[in-house]
């Protein structure tokens, strides 16, 4: 009988049932999508870590023999145990171990080490990978927040959705309080009432929950394809594993459980409340939207008259029901607008500090691994490349140089010289200050060209010193003021190895300059006190043993004849790699491709983060829909009152429009000043001119987001309002709840 009653009631209150069905469908979809996405991104993260750092959970370093290897492999929880050939030597080997049950890795590893006669110090853990299984060693203090972040997002989504569906259920169930009061008055126990409501909830939710679940899975497949498309652009190396949608029964079970728990809690809360109501209280219930105390007419009343006041009062009375939507819409809009502004600012900054700055300096860059410049034999071939206007081959090395007080320029000395410099950059000694002296080693031809460019003697037996230091008190890093570092009187410079004491090498100085060679390099950006030396490769060959510190990479920087065609640059890049030869390991890039990659990466990040904002906004919009579709029962009385005293249907529509405008507009009103303040702070921190930002401000995406929110809220109100206005006034007045 109860089931029959529930069916009849659901048929009668189709609109409010629809709001529950919609809320459940959207919630199931979001939860299923979120669980599936979280699982796939988690799996991808694990694969990425394994790809980057190796597939091992614990590592033992020490003397490993075939015998001890066998002992490890026979350990009950060990899945694999393999010698890492790259890290192993003759004396000491590195053994990478994975486990069937990684949860006990922290207990098993010391035990394994003990079994093969090694101490705990021989054991290391793959903390980054273990953190993905929520295994944390107290010794690991790094904040590994990715997994907790997944859990947090899913948890927040669950709680938000509980509030949304709970609200939809509350509207549906509240519309029947009087009937339930009558049930109660004829002897139905609170338990029977709860059972009736829960049964009704089950009947209403089964189908939309299943449909939402499947739709969420399909959507997650689509989302992963999109993410993989953008992530593909981020893959510098094409061997990185692709992002492929996959599933696991446990994930499906978790998603299903999250959906069922969300629905059960959502239905249980209002059902429990209703079950506890006294019969008399229930029979007298009229479901009016009430205000706790009298409110003074606000802005809406002043601007839009009585319709404005009624809309404002209705919103105040529904404040609790609309809390989720207000919060979700505000936060999603805030996150979206901040993200847009942040990406725009970072884009402007990258454009100014990288792309524009180096635009005329390079077209193709080839990094050659393990190739000392003095031994590199491809220089001539690279210089003779077809389509190359110029070519510079250079290497970098790190060294130190002692700067004495007498050497420091007058301007620099007036700015307190090096005495106030941070210790990590400048070490004070009895003779002066030991500063970092990065060495840029240019191929001889490029070095001579550079000497001619700065008006220095074109000779290969000396170094050119970049004789400038930043005004450290001027914080604006975009427009730094420079001054001479040294007085430029010393004819030689003494370079010392970076990190080792004892050896040093005196080199003649051919020039002090403030001009740098046309290289895609930055000088003095982090360590303001570094003293950069430019050396020809032939000179470096003779001093390298004493100075040391050369990096293993060699850079080939090419400027093309045809600088506008992506195809021409790709061809030149290919040619350059060929000219370097197969005997070297190389990595290459070209300017146009890099710009495109940067744009797509930025776009990809924005799509992914924007999708999360949209997802969050959907929760808010879902709440608005569940409210608006629940109107038909809840606000019939209200509308009947307005209409009976002569409010026209146009007046009712105006009222609804104002309510929708406030719901959609409030997030904007709250967010706009916060975003403006945040942008102002970001502009200050990045020393960008406001007009530069304004010219590139992300107006269109933010407007589209706003329009999306307004359109969704307007649609919800349109559907709810249309159903309401279709009701006959006489019918509404004759309704038995009309009291």
């Amino acid at each position: 009988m109860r089931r029959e009653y529930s069916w009849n009631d659901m048929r009668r209150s189709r609109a409010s049932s629809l709001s529950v069905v919609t809320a459940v469908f959207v919630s199931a979809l979001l939860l299923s999508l979120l669980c599936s996405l979280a699982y796939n991104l988690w799996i991808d993260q694990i694969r990425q870590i394994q790809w980057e750092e190796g597939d091992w959970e614990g590592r033992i370093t020490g003397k490993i023999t075939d015998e001890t290897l066998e002992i490890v492999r026979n350990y009950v929880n060990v899945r694999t145990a393999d010698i890492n050939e790259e890290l192993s030597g003759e004396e000491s080997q590195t053994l990478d171990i994975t486990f069937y049950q990684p949860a006990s890795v922290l207990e098993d590893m010391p035990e394994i080490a003990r079994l093969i006669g090694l101490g705990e110090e021989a054991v290391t853990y793959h903390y980054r990978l273990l953190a993905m299984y929520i295994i944390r060693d107290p010794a690991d203090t790094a904040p590994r927040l990715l997994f907790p972040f997944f859990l947090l997002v899913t948890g927040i989504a669950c709680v938000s959705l509980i509030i949304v569906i709970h609200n939809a259920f509350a509207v549906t169930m509240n519309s029947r309080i009087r009937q339930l009061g009558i049930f109660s008055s004829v002897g139905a126990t609170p338990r029977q009432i709860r059972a009736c409501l829960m049964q009704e909830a089950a009947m209403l939710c089964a189908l939309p929950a299943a449909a939402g679940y499947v739709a969420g899975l399909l959507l997650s497949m689509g989302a992963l394809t999109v993410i993989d498309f953008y992530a593909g652009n981020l893959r510098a190396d094409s061997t990185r594993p692709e992002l492929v949608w996959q599933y696991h029964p446990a994930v499906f079970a978790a998603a299903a459980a999250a959906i069922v728990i969300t629905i059960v809690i959502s239905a249980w809360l209002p059902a429990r409340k209703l079950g506890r109501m006294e019969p008399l209280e229930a029979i007298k219930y009229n479901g009016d939207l009430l205000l706790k105390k009298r409110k003074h007419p606000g802005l809406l009343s002043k601007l839009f008259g009585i319709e404005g006041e009624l809309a404002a009062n209705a919103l105040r009375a529904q404040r609790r029901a609309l809390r989720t939507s207000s919060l979700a819409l505000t936060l999603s809009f805030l996150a979206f607008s901040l993200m847009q502004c942040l990406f725009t600012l970072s884009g402007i900054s990258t454009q100014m500090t990288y792309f524009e700055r180096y635009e005329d300096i390079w077209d193709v860059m080839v990094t050659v691994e393990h190739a000392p410049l003095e031994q590199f034999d491809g220089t001539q071939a690279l210089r003779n490349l077809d389509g190359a206007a110029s070519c510079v081959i250079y290497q970098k090395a790190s060294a130190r140089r002692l700067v004495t007080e007498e050497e420091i320029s007058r301007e620099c000395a007036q700015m307190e010289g090096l005495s106030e410099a941070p210790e990590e950059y400048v070490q004070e000694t009895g003779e002066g200050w030991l500063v970092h002296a990065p060495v840029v080693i240019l191929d001889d031809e490029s070095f001579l060209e550079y000497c001619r460019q700065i008006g220095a003697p074109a000779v290969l037996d000396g170094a050119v010193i970049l004789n400038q230091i930043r005004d450290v008190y001027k914080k604006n890093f975009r427009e730094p003021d420079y001054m001479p570092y040294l007085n430029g009187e010393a004819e030689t410079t003494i370079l010392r190895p970076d990190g080792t004491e004892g050896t040093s090498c005196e080199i003649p100085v051919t020039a002090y300059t403030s001009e740098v060679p046309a290289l895609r390099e930055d000088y003095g950006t982090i360590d303001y006190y570094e003293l950069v030396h430019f050396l020809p490769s032939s000179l470096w060959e003779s001093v390298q043993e004493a100075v040391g510190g050369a990096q293993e990479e060699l850079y080939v920087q090419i400027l093309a004849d045809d600088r506008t065609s992506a195809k021409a640059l790709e061809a030149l890049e290919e040619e350059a790699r060929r000219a370097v030869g197969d005997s070297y390991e190389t990595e290459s890039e070209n300017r146009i491709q890099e710009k495109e990659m940067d744009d797509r990466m930025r776009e990809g990040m924005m799509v992914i983060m924007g999708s999360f904002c949209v997802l969050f906004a959907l929760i808010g919009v879902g709440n608005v829909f569940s409210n608006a579709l629940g109107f038909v029962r809840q606000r019939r009385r209200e509308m009947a009152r307005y209409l009976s005293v002569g409010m026209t249907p146009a007046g009712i529509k105006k009222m609804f429009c104002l309510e929708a405008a406030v719901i959609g507009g409030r997030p904007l009103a709250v967010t706009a000043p916060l975003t403006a303040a945040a942008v102002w702070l970001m502009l200050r921190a990045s020393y960008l001119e406001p007009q530069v930002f304004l010219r590139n401000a992300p107006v269109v995406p933010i407007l589209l987001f706003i329009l999306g929110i307004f359109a969704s809220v307007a649609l919800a109100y349109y559907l709810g309002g249309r159903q309401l206005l279709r009701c006959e006034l006489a019918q509404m007045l004759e309704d038995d709840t009309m009291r």
Partner: protein
Amino acid sequence: MEVVKCENVRKVYGRGENEVVALAGIDLSVEKGEFVAVMGASGSGKSTLLHILGSVDRPTSGTVTVDGCDVASMNPTQAAIFRRRKVGLVYQFYNLIPTLTVRKNIWMPLILDKRQPNEELLEKVTEMLGIHDRLDFLPDQLSGGQQQRAAIARALIYRPAILLADEPTGNLDKKNSREIIDLLKISNRDLRQTVILITHDEKIALEADRIVTLEDGRIISDIRRG
């Protein structure tokens, strides 16, 4: 002067087997300043008649004229404007807007009509109804009798052509019922307000100048008293 005229008014709900005839050819004429009680058992059609007179519902056939306006031919907007200018509706359950103060509730039809509320009239009416000191309260803060007085004040404030009261004492105790009927009589006598009162209580009906009795959607008696 004739303020209400109904000619052969029929109202049918549903179709086929579900057809219910609520009004089966009503002819009724009410003069300005009359106090008419419409009586009848439950389902006799008295509320349907009141809804049609108040432009809340439309007749299936026949003509209804209230203060010169053809109620049957109005669209929803015209009907709403008609309600706020020509008729005052008082219901058993008051139907005050819970989120507005009593003052705003009373002024509501005038505000909707963009007319300047008349403070003097408000004072006169609310003093007469005994709710002058309750004007800045929310309806929920008033007793049932006070809420019904506020509903009557709202119906009188714009001097409608007819005041339609649907069981206005149905939710009140004896003392308050007596007072409400007295107030309706006072407004009829002092303000020459035409009142059509729907009731099933014979005692209350006897307070009116004229008693119209309905049965199965037809007028079975129309008695003028005094």
